[in-house]
C-alpha cells in the first residue's frame, strides 16, 4: 500500500551549521518524486530524515496521517536503495532479497514465493545462488532494488542509485527503475545530482539549493518556466543576458544591450513596470540568420557538429559569449569569424527580476510556492 508523504518545516543541523531550515513538501501517493540539486544542497540529508537514519531536529514528517518522526527506521516500512547498493556480501543473492521478509516472520512458503517473484521481476533469478562479489554493477543494482521492493514497502527511497554505473547501463537501468515503479505503483523518492536523469525518470522534481527548495514541478515546468534564475541555469543550459524593460499597456519590451529589442505579451500583470531584468535564453531559443541584418549581431567563434544538432559558440558586440543550438542543416556549417544575426523565440524565453529570484513570465507552476502542497 502506497502512502503520501507530507513534510512540514523540516529542520536539520549538524553541530552549529544548519543544513535544512524549515523545508515543506508534499509527495503524492504513487508518485515518482526526485530531489535534485548540486552536492551539499541537503537532498541526501532530507532523504535520510525520511528513512530515519538522520535525526529530525524540527518539523513534522507524515506518511498519510501518521507522524513518523519518532518511529524506528526498522518500523517505517521503507524500501531503500543505497548509492553503493549495500548488498550483504556474506549472503547469496536470494538470501539478500529474502532478508527483509525473514525479519517480518512470514511463513517459509511465503518467503520463498515472494522472493522468487521479485527475483523474476528484476530478471536476476538465474543468479539467485551466487554470492554478491560475483555480480556486475548492474546486477547488484537489481538485487538492491528487488531487496527493497520485496517487503512491500509504503515508500521506496533511492539515494543516487545509478551513480556507480557506466553511462550506457545508467540509461538502461533508469528505464528499468521507471517501469518497475509504474508497475508496483509505489511512492518513490529519488535523489540525484544529474538533471538529465531526473528529467527522464520523474513525475515531479524538487530542485534544491543550500537546503531550500527552489522549485517543485514536472520536468516540463522546470525546463520551460523555471521559477528563478538558479533553476533556469541548473536545469539544462542557458544564456543569461541583462536588459532594461519598458512597459506599454500589456506589452513589455526588453531592450537588450547592443540595441536589440524583444516584445513580450505574456508577462505577469504584477511585474508590468519599467525595470531592469535578467533574460534567460536557452541555446535552442535563438534563430540564426545569415542573410538579414536584423537582430543581435554576433561573430562565430567555433562550432561543434553532433549529428542531430550543431552547437555554435559566438560572441556579441558587447563581448558576451553565447551558445546556440541549431538543428543540423544539409548546407555547410557556418565558418568561424563569420558574422551572423540572432533572433529569439519570444514565447519561449524567460525573464527574471533583477536579483534573479522570480520569473516574471506567466505560466510558472511551482508547487513549493504554496507550502509544498501540490
Amino acid at each position, binding site marked *: 500500500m502506497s502512502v503520501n508523504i507530507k513534510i512540514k518545516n523540516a529542520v536539520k543541523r549538524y553541530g552549529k551549521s544548519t543544513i535544512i531550515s524549515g523545508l515543506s513538501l508534499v509527495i503524492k501517493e504513487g508518485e515518482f518524486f526526485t530531489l535534485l540539486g548540486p552536492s551539499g544542497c541537503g537532498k541526501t540529508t532530507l532523504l535520510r530524515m525520511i*528513512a*530515519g*537514519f538522520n*535525526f529530525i531536529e524540527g518539523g513534522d514528517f507524515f506518511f498519510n496521517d501518521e507522524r513518523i518522526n*519518532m*518511529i*524506528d*527506521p*526498522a*518500523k*517505517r*516500512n*521503507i*524500501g*531503500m536503495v*543505497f*548509492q*553503493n547498493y*549495500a*548488498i*550483504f*556480501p*556474506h549472503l547469496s543473492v536470494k538470501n539478500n532479497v529474502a*532478508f*527483509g521478509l525473514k*525479519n*517480518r516472520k512470514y511463513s517459509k512458503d511465503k518467503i520463498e514465493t515472494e522472493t522468487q517473484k521479485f527475483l523474476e521481476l528484476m530478471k536476476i533469478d538465474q543468479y539467485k545462488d551466487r554470492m554478491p562479489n560475483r555480480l556486475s554493477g548492474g546486477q547488484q543494482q537489481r538485487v538492491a532494488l528487488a*531487496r*527493497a521492493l520485496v*517487503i512491500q514497502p509504503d515508500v521506496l*527511497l533511492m539515494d543516487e542509485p545509478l551513480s556507480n554505473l557506466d553511462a550506457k547501463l545508467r540509461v538502461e537501468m533508469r528505464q528499468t527503475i521507471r517501469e518497475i515503479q509504474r508497475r508496483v505503483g509505489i511512492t518513490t523518492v529519488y535523489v540525484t545530482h544529474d538533471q538529465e536523469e531526473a528529467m527522464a525518470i520523474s513525475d515531479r522534481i524538487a530542485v534544491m539549493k543550500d537546503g531550500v527548495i527552489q522549485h517543485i514541478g514536472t520536468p516540463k515546468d522546470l525546463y520551460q518556466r523555471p521559477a528563478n534564475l538558479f533553476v533556469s541555469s541548473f536545469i539544462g543550459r542557458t544564456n543569461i543576458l541583462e536588459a532594461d524593460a519598458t512597459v506599454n499597456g500589456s506589452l513589455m519590451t526588453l531592450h537588450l544591450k547592443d540595441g536589440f529589442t524583444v516584445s513580450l505579451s505574456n508577462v505577469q500583470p504584477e511585474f508590468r513596470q519599467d525595470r531592469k531584468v535578467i533574460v534567460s535564453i536557452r541555446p535552442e531559443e535563438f534563430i540564426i540568420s545569415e542573410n538579414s541584418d536584423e537582430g543581435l549581431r554576433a561573430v562565430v567563434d567555433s562550432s561543434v557538429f553532433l549529428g542531430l544538432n550543431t552547437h555554435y559558440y559566438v560572441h556579441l558586440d558587447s563581448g558576451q559569449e553565447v551558445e546556440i543550438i541549431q538543428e543540423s542543416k544539409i548546407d555547410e556549417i557556418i565558418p568561424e569569424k563569420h558574422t551572423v544575426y540572432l533572433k529569439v523565440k519570444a514565447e519561449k524565453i524567460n525573464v527574471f527580476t533583477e536579483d534573479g529570484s522570480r520569473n516574471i513570465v506567466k505560466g510558472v507552476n511551482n508547487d513549493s510556492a504554496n507550502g509544498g502542497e501540490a
Partner: protein
Amino acid sequence: MARKKLFDAWAIVYLAIFAAYLLFLIYPMYTILQNSVIGENGTLSLEWFAKFFSQKYYSQTLIHSFSVTLCTTVLSLVIGVPLAYFYNLYEIKGRSLIQVLIILCSMSAPFIGAYAWIQLLGRSGIVTKFFQSRLGITIPNIYGFNGILLVLTLQLYPLVFLYVSGALKNIDNSLLEASDNLGCTGIRRFFKVIIPLCMPTILAAALLVFMRAFADFGTPLLIGEGYRVFPVEIYTQFLGETGTNYNFAAAISVIAIVITAFIFLVQKILSNRFAFTMNALNPIERKKAKGIKGFFMYFYTYVIIGLAFLPQVYIVYQSFQNTSGKLFRPGYSFDSYKTALKRMGDSIPNTFIIGGIALVAVVFLAILISYLVVRRSNVITQAIDTMSMLPYIIPGSVVGIALVMAFNKKPIILTGTIGIMVIALCIRRLPYTIRSSVATLQQIPLTTEEAAISLGASKMKTFFKITVPMMSNGIISGAILSWVTIITELSTAIILYNSKTVTLTLAVYTFVTRGNYGYAAALATVLTALTVISLLIFMKVSKSKEITF
C-alpha cells in the same frame, strides 16, 4: 533515531566495559605508581628512582635493553622487508610451506628459541663442539648481547614479513606498472616506490617488534647471562631469590612504561607523516624469479627461514633422544614424553581452560569494543578505546606485577586463581584484536547496516546477523593469532601462576630452568604441535592459505 535515546542496550554494554577497564587496568596501574613513590620508611619519596639512576648496576640495564632492542628492530626490518618483497613479487617455490613455517616461527615462545640455540651454539652445544673438535674453530660467544640479538631477531622478523606482506597485497599493480613506465625499475623502484608505499606498515611493524623485544623476559633470562636487561631486573626485584622489593620493582616498571610510551609517541608522529590508505583493484602479479637474481632470492629466502626454523626442528629431534637425569644419552625413544607427561600435572588442561576462556573473552570484547568505537563514538567509548590500547606499551611482566599488587589484598583477592591469569591475558591481547576488528569494521560501509535496519531488522539483529558475519574474516584471523600468543605467553604468567595454574609454556620453562632439557623438549614439541593444529584448523575454516595479520 534511537541513537538519541539515553539508555539503549549499548549504553549498558559500554558502561560495563568501562567499569571493567577501570578496575582491572587503571586501578592496578595506579597501584604500581603509588608503590613506586613510597620509600623504605613508608613515606612519599623518589628514593627508588634515585637508586635506579645513581647506581650503574641498575641503570646499565636500561642501556642494555635499549641497545639490544634497537638492534633487533633494525635487523628484523632489514631481514623481513626484502623477504616479504621477494615472496610477494616473485614466484618462489614452496609458497604455502614458507608461509606456514614463518607463522610458526613467529608464534613459538621466544625462550624456547633461546634454549634451543644454547643447545646448538652454547658452551657445550653440538655445533660448537663440532667446530671445536673437528675444525679447531672457536665459535663466537652466544651468551649475552649476541645471543639475545640472534634469538629475538629470528623470532621477530616473521612479524615484519607478515605485516609488510599485508601491505604489499594492498598495492595496486598499476602503481608498479606506472613506476616502470616512468623509468623507475628494480632496486630503484624498491626504494623509491615500494618502501614509501609500505612505510605506514613498516613503522607499525617496527613498533611491534620494538615492544616485543623490549618486554621480552624469557630470552635474556636464559641466554643473557651477565648482560642484564630491564624485564629481568623487574622480575628479580619482585620475586628474586635475593630478597624482594615491591617498591623498587614498581619504580623500575614506571620507568619502563615511560620509555615505551615515549617510543610509542615517536612512532605515532612518524607514521602520521605517512598516513594514506590504499586499496588494490589489481593485486600485484608475481613474476618468475630467474637467473642470478632468482638464485639469490631463493638462497636468501630458504636460508633465512631455515635459520628461524632450525631451533624448532632441533627441539623436536631432542624430544625423542634418550635421557638419563639431565644428560642426553644415545638412542631414541618416547621416554621424555612419558616422564614429562607424568610430571607436568594439569598443565595441558590448564592451558586449554585458561587459554580457551581468555580467547572467548578477547574475541567477544574485541567485537563489542570495536563496534562501540567505530559506530557509537562518544566520550566513554573513546575512553575505552584509549584504555584498551594502554597495555600495548606496558611490558607483560609489569602487567603481571600490577595485577598482583592490586589484587593480593582485600577487598578483592585474585592472586593464584585462574581468573587473574585470564584477566591478564585479556588485557594484553585486546589491543591487537581490537585494532584488527576496528580496521575490518571501518571497511564495512555504514549503509549495509542501514539497509538491514530499513528492511526491518532490529539493531541487535543487525549487529549479529550482518555486522558480525561481515567482520568474521577479521575476527577469525585475529582469534587464531590471539590463541597462539595466549598459549605461548610467559612474561605475565610467570608472575601470576601458582602450582594449580601451571600452563604448558610455564611447564616447559620450569623444566628448562631445572635443566631437564629432554622433558622441556618433549613439552615444547607438544606446544608446537598444538600451534600447528590451530593453524591448520584456521586454514581449513578460512579456506585460505594466505594469512595476513
